[in-house]
């Protein structure tokens, strides 16, 4: 039994490994065709990061992690929430604004802002959920549109709220009061976001809720077969709406590590595009909390390690976007290849184990 367990684990790791090797080969090919120093690129990317870069990797992975979990919740119920991007931007703005107003003292203000962010994220995603449930509008379409609308709404509101700021050409919300910032955690001589703790909690809660709770069972059942879910007594429409709200609430957290640990305000330069990386990482991590964590670290590693490429080798860091894209494509294929191989392996096993027994039966029959 332990032998088969070892095989299972080995197989589980084989797929991502296969995808990484393929991505490595294809990226190298692109570099070679473009006449770039491909060995130099890899020796930079695969070199051990400096402590400073390491801190950046962890920070960036934290953000990616939250984004991917938000997407994964939807995936488990067969909903494709492409709108994490818009949801986290509008939620970050709301949280920044609430926190900037400093309605409550110190840490309470943080809690209030977190709740505000999650609430707004949930509501924004909830629009798509409601359209899906009542009007049958595909959440893929509606969340894409809501991304565009979020951009406009945030720009408009930011102008309104930021008007009161003076003397700066970058418009942003009122900065958080000193007491409402989340302190960093010392790490390798630097500091990583204190929000890492929240990300870990989110990961654990995600796992427990989805894999161990009754609610999670309903959610997964509805995602696997709507008709069987209905017959089993699940209110599938309600489930869709709730899933969308939860996905949006987690999306509402995505921008907050930046807000509470680094930027301290929401401005026109606030980082965007984190929602799309989340889709890729959720796919890569197979919606599993640990898989997602590894995927997030990998993506963050590629991002951060490729930064100096321009200066060192005159190669655009965008090359790692190719790598990331290829990883996501190949991982889907790799999982299938490895699965088939596993089935064949097991078949041979079983056949070998059962054959003598069968011969015996034939003789006695």
């Amino acid at each position, binding site marked *: 039994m332990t032998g088969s367990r070892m095989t299972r684990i080995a197989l589980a790791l084989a797929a991502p490994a296969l995808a990484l090797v393929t991505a490595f080969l294809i990226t190298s090919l692109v570099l070679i065709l473009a006449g770039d120093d491909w060995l130099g690129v890899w020796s930079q990317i695969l070199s051990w990061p400096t402590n400073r870069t390491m801190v950046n990797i962890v920070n960036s992975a934290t953000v990616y992690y939250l984004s991917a979990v938000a997407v994964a919740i939807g995936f488990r119920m067969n909903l494709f929430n492409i709108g994490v991007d818009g949801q986290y931007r509008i939620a970050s703005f709301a949280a920044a604004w609430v926190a900037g107003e400093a309605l409550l003292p110190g840490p309470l203000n943080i809690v209030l802002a977190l709740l505000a962010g999650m609430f707004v994220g949930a509501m924004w995603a909830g629009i798509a959920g409601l359209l899906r449930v009542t009007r049958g509008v595909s959440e893929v379409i509606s969340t894409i549109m809501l991304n565009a609308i979020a951009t406009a709404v945030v720009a408009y509101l930011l102008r309104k709220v930021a008007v009161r700021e003076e003397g700066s050409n970058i418009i942003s919300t009122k900065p958080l009061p000193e007491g409402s910032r989340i302190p960093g955690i010392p790490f390798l001589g630097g500091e990583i976001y204190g929000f890492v703790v929240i990300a870990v909690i989110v990961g654990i809660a995600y796992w427990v809720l989805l894999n161990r709770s009754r*609610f999670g069972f309903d959610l997964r059942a509805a995602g*696997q077969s709507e*008709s069987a879910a209905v*017959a089993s007594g699940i209110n599938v429409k309600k489930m869709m709406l709730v899933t969308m709200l939860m996905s949006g609430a987690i999306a509402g957290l995505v921008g907050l590590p930046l807000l509470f640990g680094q930027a301290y305000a929401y401005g026109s330069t606030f980082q965007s595009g984190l929602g799309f990386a989340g889709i890729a990482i959720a796919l890569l991590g197979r919606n599993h909390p640990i898989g997602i964590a590894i995927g997030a670290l990998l993506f963050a590693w590629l991002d951060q390690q490729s930064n100096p490429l321009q200066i060192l080798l005159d190669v655009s860091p965008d090359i790692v976007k190719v790598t990331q894209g290829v990883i996501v494509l190949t991982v889907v294929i790799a999982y299938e290849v490895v699965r088939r191989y596993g089935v064949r392996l097991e*078949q041979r096993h079983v*056949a070998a184990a059962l054959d003598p027994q069968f011969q015996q039966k034939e003789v006695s029959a």
Partner: protein
Amino acid sequence: MSNTSTDPGASATGAPDVAVRLRGIGKTFPGVVANHDVDIDVRRGTIHAIVGENGAGKSTLMKILYGVQKPDSGTIELDGQPVVLSSPSDAIGHGVGMVFQHFMLADNLTVLENVVLGAEKLHGIGDGARTKIREISAAYGLGIEPDDLVADLGVGARQRIEILKVLYRGARIIILDEPTAVLVPQEVDELFDNLRELKAEGLAVIFISHKLDEVLSVADEVTVIRRGATVSTVPADSVTSRQLAELMVGSELPSPSTELSTVTDVEVLEVVDLHLPDARGGRPLLDGISLRIHRGEILGIAGVEGNGQAELVEAIMGMRPDATGRIELNDGDIAGWSTRERREAGIGYIPEDRHRQGLLLDAPLWENRVLGHQTREPNIAGPFIDRRGARDDTERIVREYDVRSPGIDTLARALSGGNQQKLIVGREMSSEPSLLIAAHPTRGVDVGAQAAIWDHIKRARRDGLAVLLISADLDELIGLSDTIAVLLRGRLVGTFDPGDVTPQQLGSAMTGATDEEETA
């Protein structure tokens, strides 16, 4: 599609009349040997039946012959030529066609459109195709009109369309996997007449069934498969169904016991004036249905599929929000309740379509034990799933209902059809329901398992279970029910005492032959 459309008639000079020769076919799945050294010869111009217990490997063997599954070992010869079939289109290219148990027709298309779909190159999509369909239909007595809408046709006709589809693509060897499971006796007779036409034209027909009497009435030869291997092939006129059953199981069958009535006068379910309108504006799907079932009573509903059975069941389960009327369970009005509330109140539900409604095919068996019972013991501990409890109880069901599976972590998809059904029945009988809504509870299970399921139901009835039984199997209805009601075009058109009704009487009531004129 680059196959060289071989003409089997012309090239068959080698072997005289063996259309299909399987030798040493083996196939292993994780944890089970599905086929092992299977040898079968099917002669042209014959009907060849394959029988065997649930999980014996019949469907797997046919999927191998149809190119859906790849065998691990063995050879296939068609008309004396060795072939390798790696896909269904390969198989069709070699003249092999298969009709699956679950029909694959698009409801909102016409017969013509369904038939030509994917075979547009053969005779076009217009008049050429229409003529060809009429020709085939006439040649084999299928009685199919190319321009009918599939949505308007019954199960029997749909099955004939599936057969026509296969013939249209030039099949000379036709495989039918449990074709009669969904048919009522009259339709079965019609189907068998069609099959005889096919064989008269020199085609080879292979069919799988668990109904041994049917097998003996239509087949020329019968191959018995047990645990993946061929036990023997016998001429159909040299065996009785009892002997067949014993060959299948390898031992004698238990004989079903006779039962005394256990009906009480405590009402469990009362339905009053249940209506369900047709969303497309046609005749109501359910029209003024009233019925009552007492503790210890089994009410059987007879009817040709498509006359409102599915709707009646779903309305009682709370899955049809448009339904109006009163539904009382144990004297409480449940008409406004959700499906979950009804299940929690003690209704067990065996749905008619196990793949669509009964199972999560890609979840392990123990998670399927939880499905539909995810708010109740032994599956839960507070807000959490109790994995230990659910797994232990799954082990119990697998044991008590003889579900053949390598283990409870196996995916439901990997079980044979009959074993999936046994799992569902076992699940719905646990947690002691007061009412069981059973749609075709023994559809697709072998004779031994059928008797076992009947025993389980009878035992529960003795303890006070009320059952609403829907079945296409009239012997099952007559054997189990305390009362039989006939459902025709959404209305209950008569009740019969199973003690003195014949299948023929029921059959004519079901098709409306004895029905008074229709109300508009």
